[in-house]
Each structure stands twice: as structure tokens, then as C-alpha cells.
């Protein structure tokens, strides 16, 4: 009796594993086209870009294959002069590069910080029940729907020094005495970029956090209300801790996006030293000066920075990005 049961179970198990094997084999073939495509458009170009950063590739030799290996020369190299002074060259000794790094970091931290706070406020607002909530949600989707280049142009017009409505508003309430050339002045260009980015991206943050807020059971708030706990305390003790996972994911996506910013800066504040970022300086070298070697070195450094940053974030925050565990 027992033997037959075991045999039956074994047969069932064998069928099961056979099925599982068949499924895994099918899965491989289902994944193959996508993986092949990603290899050609992402992995291979990334590898080649990093290779270029170790050569003297420029517009003349890049397609003929005549670029020669120069090691770390594009990154950092030194020469001892006759008088004994050491002269440093390469991206890592270039003040323009460090200016771009500083601009990128400054932009990423300030924009994501403000977008998180403002997005949370808007999300809390949309989580309350009031008349016309659907309409408000539709309205805040508009900045998100507008292409970045169009936003840059629209705001460029509004921030225009002579005819811009922003200067006119500020002048009429007496906040400034004379019109400001927002996008042209090195000290205000970053403010202009931040205004446009925050305007465009806060809705996205708000919607992500709203989804997180709606996961919090309503009865939690009700019991807190019955216990007479102050709303501010409820926010810090209940809402914020429960929102943390959604918040962490939203912040990392935004930070990664902010670190690679290019289009808004290129169109809103072209060639401004106050806003040039790592992506912009690298693009200028590659596309405008044909200096593939230096441009690739800069883009590879940006890639490395982002890689380290993501690694640290996942490791320190124990963020479950894939959603596999839930």
C-alpha cells in the first residue's frame, strides 16, 4: 500500500519537475530577444564608451579605428617640468569638471529635497476628501505631461529679463527693484533651473506618495482620532513610518534622474557656468568639440558615481526595489 503511494507521489513529482524544467527552458527563450537587444543597445555601447575613455579617440580617428590606448591619461596624468614643478592634467585635475560635479550634486540634492517635501504636502492634500479632488489631481498632472523642452521654453519666456511675467510680478509687489536676467546671470541660473524642475516633477512625486498614502488603512487614523492624538503627532508617528518604503523608492528614482539631468539645462540656461552639469560638459566634449576621449572619461565617471551611489543606497537602506519580497 505504502509503496504505491510513494510511487504515485514520485511520479507526480517527476512530472512536476519536468514541467518546471520545461517552463524554465521556455522562460529562457522568452527572455533571449529582450536580453540580446539590451546587450546591443546598452551593454556594448557602455563598454565601448568606457574603452574610449582610455584612448585618444577624437572626431578624426574614432570611426577608422585609429584611436590609440593611452591608459589613464584622460583621467589624470602629470608631467615634471624642468624647474621641478609638477603639472597635473586630465579630467580629475580640471576645474571645469569639478564645477560640473558641484553643480550636479547641488542641483540633485536641492531639487529632490524640495520635491519630496512639496510632493508630500500635495499628496497629503489629495489624500483628504474634498469636493473637486479629481479635478485637482487632473490639474497637477499637466506639468508632468508637458515635454521638458517645452517647459524649458515656456519658463524661459516667463523668466525673460525684459518681457517676462515673473519679473513683472516681482516688480509690482516690490520684491525686486529692477528686472533680473534669471537664466543668463551665473548666480540666478541655477535658481531658474530649480524652479522649472520642481514645478515639473513635484506632481510625479506627489502621485507616487499618494499611492503610498492610500495603502495606509483608514481605521489607523480613526483610532488615533478616538484616542485624541494630535494630528501632527499622528503624521510623524503613523503616516511617515508607514510611508517610508514608498518614499525611499520615489527618492532614489528622482535622485538618479536628477544626477543625469541634461535637456532642461541645455535649453533653459545654455552655456551657463552656473548650471553646467556632468552630462552637459560630457556632451559638449563629445558632440561639440569632437573630443570623444575626454567626453567619455567624464561620462564614465558619472556612471561610476551613480553606480557607487545606488550600491550604497540599496545596501544601507535595504530597499526592496524589485518588489520580489512583498
Amino acid at each position, binding site marked *: 500500500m505504502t509503496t504505491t503511494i510513494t510511487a504515485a507521489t514520485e511520479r507526480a513529482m517527476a512530472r512536476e519537475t519536468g*514541467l518546471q524544467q*520545461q517552463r*524554465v527552458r*521556455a*522562460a529562457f527563450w*522568452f*527572455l533571449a*530577444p*529582450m*536580453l540580446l537587444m*539590451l546587450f*546591443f*543597445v546598452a551593454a*556594448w*555601447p*557602455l563598454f*565601448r564608451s568606457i*574603452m574610449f575613455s582610455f584612448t585618444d579617440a577624437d572626431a578624426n580617428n*574614432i*570611426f577608422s579605428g585609429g584611436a590609440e590606448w593611452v591608459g589613464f591619461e584622460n583621467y589624470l596624468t602629470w608631467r615634471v617640468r624642468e624647474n621641478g614643478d609638477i603639472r597635473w592634467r586630465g579630467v580629475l585635475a580640471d576645474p571645469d569638471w569639478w564645477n560640473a560635479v558641484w553643480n550636479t550634486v547641488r542641483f540633485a540634492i536641492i531639487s529632490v529635497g524640495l520635491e519630496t517635501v512639496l510632493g508630500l504636502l500635495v499628496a497629503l*492634500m489629495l489624500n483628504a476628501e*474634498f469636493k473637486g479632488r479629481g*479635478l*485637482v489631481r487632473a*490639474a*497637477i*498632472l*499637466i*506639468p508632468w*505631461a*508637458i*515635454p*521638458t*523642452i517645452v517647459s524649458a*521654453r*515656456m*519658463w524661459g*519666456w516667463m523668466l*525673460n529679463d*525684459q*518681457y*517676462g*511675467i515673473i519679473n513683472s510680478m516681482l516688480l509690482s509687489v516690490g520684491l525686486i527693484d529692477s528686472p533680473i536676467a534669471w537664466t543668463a546671470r551665473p548666480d540666478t541660473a541655477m535658481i531658474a533651473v530649480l524652479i522649472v524642475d520642481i*514645478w515639473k516633477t513635484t506632481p510625479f512625486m506627489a502621485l*507616487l506618495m499618494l499611492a503610498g498614502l492610500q495603502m495606509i488603512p483608514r481605521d489607523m487614523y480613526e483610532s488615533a482620532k478616538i484616542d485624541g492624538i494630535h494630528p501632527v503627532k499622528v503624521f510623524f508617528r503613523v503616516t511617515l513610518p508607514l510611508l517610508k518604503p514608498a518614499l525611499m523608492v520615489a527618492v532614489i528614482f*528622482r535622485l*538618479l534622474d536628477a544626477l543625469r539631468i*541634461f*535637456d532642461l539645462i541645455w*535649453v533653459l540656461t545654455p552655456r551657463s557656468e552656473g548650471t553646467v552639469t*556632468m*552630462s552637459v560638459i*560630457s*556632451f559638449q566634449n*563629445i558632440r561639440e568639440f569632437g573630443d570623444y576621449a575626454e*567626453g*567619455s572619461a567624464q*561620462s564614465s565617471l*558619472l556612471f561610476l558615481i551613480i553606480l557607487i551611489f545606488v550600491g550604497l543606497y540599496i545596501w544601507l537602506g535595504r530597499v526592496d526595489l524589485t518588489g*520580489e519580497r512583498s
Partner: protein
Amino acid sequence: MTASSIFWNVMFYIGVALVVLIAVFPFYYAVLSSFETGTDLFRVNYLPQSWDFSNYETVLGRASFLRSVLNSVFVATVTVLAALLLAVTASYALARVRFRGRGLLLLTILAVSMFPQIAVLSGLYELINWLGLYNTPWALIISYTIFTLPFTVWVLTTFMRDLPVEIEEAAIVDGASPWVIITKVFLPLLWPAMVTTGLLAFIGAWNEFLFALTFTIDETQRTVPVAIANFSGASVQEIPWGPIMAASVVVTVPLIILVLVFQRKIVAGLTAGGVKG
């Protein structure tokens, strides 16, 4: 109601009104400016002063602008169709089949969509030149796959993971092959998710700027964002703000309508993908 609760209610609605105003005003002002010419355009006003269509006539009269709209439609459509085709089977494998290294693979795919596009620029430039596609729409279609494909795979995987196991089990018991399961069982259920992802990928491709700026050189090959960024007047100093605003309105209104119509679906797709479109 007590006095203080009335006060906070009023404050709440003022806050709501302020948020709506800030969100909508810049586009409203662009529409306003697009209907103004001459001195009207250069005088700040908050309400419509005139309904002058000459900026629209200027923009739509330019053959190069119409061409760039067509280029954008073509590039975005082909990109989305290709991404969906490759993503459906891949996301089935990632969502429904257990295999070793699945989590790592998902993470890698996510990483591809988030890494800086500039990091592949020179390598991709070489690849596109080698394929002989420089300055053609196909250069853009290939390069846009970098961000549309991972995004589509990612969102479809999350959607598919949430579908109940039972529907698939019934098909397995009936002896259906994985291919039949995808096409006959999952595809009909997946349509709503595919519309959402397709729409978001379309918006992403429509708005892309860096690759479009790098891989096209002629006015006839440009996409809309590059055309709008390079809009210039008779002289360098004279920026044609009127026509720029008209062009901006022309390319943005269809997007805004799409987004408002598919509002709920888009919000669901965004929260599943967590990726900015």
C-alpha cells in the same frame, strides 16, 4: 463647526487653489502668448487681449516643423511597438516562472533604465555609424530602446505578477504550452496594462532630447523637441517667442488630452514603474 475648524477649512481650500494655479498657470500663459503678436506679445497681461492666429500660421507653414512632427510620431510609434513586442514574453518569464537569478536580472533591467544616457553616448554613436543609421529615424528608434524596453518589461512584470495563479494553473492542467498561455490566457488580460505602458513609453520617446540632438543633423530628420529647442528667428538676438509658444502648444495639447483621458491608468502605471516618463 467651531471658528478654528472653519479657519483651517478656508486655509485648506486656499492651499488647494494655490497648487492648481501654480500647476496650470505656465501653460495658460503659453497659450495666451501664442495668440499675441507685435507689441501685445511684449506687454505683460493676465487675460487674453487678442486672438491672432498668425503665430500658428507661421509654425504650421514651416515644412520643417511639420516634418519634425511626423518624425516624432513615426519614431515614438515604432519604438513603442517594438518594446511591447519584446517585453510581453520577457515579462511573462520574469513574473510567472521561478528560476535562479531572477531577482538579479530584474534589478539589472531596472538599472539599465535608470543609468545616465550620456554614459553610452559615444559607444552608441560608434554603433549607429557602423550600422549606417546616422541621421535617420532608425538611429533614434534603436537608441530609445534603452529606456523604453526596460521600463515596459518592468511595468508589465509587476502587472503580471498580480494576476491570480489559478488562471494559469487551469491552462497548465489542460496541457497548454507556455506560448499558448501567453497568447491565449495572459494577452487578453494584459491589454489594459499594455495600453498604459505603451502610452508612457510613447510619451518618453516623444519627449526624448539627448539622443535626438546627437544622432540627427538635418532639419528634415529632427524630432519635435530638437525642432523647438532650435527654433530661431531672422537674427540670433531675435528669439521668435510667439511662434515658439505656438509650436509648444501644438505639440503639448495632444499629450495633455491623452494624459487626462487615461489619467487613472497612467497613475497606476507610474506607481507600478516608479519611473519618470
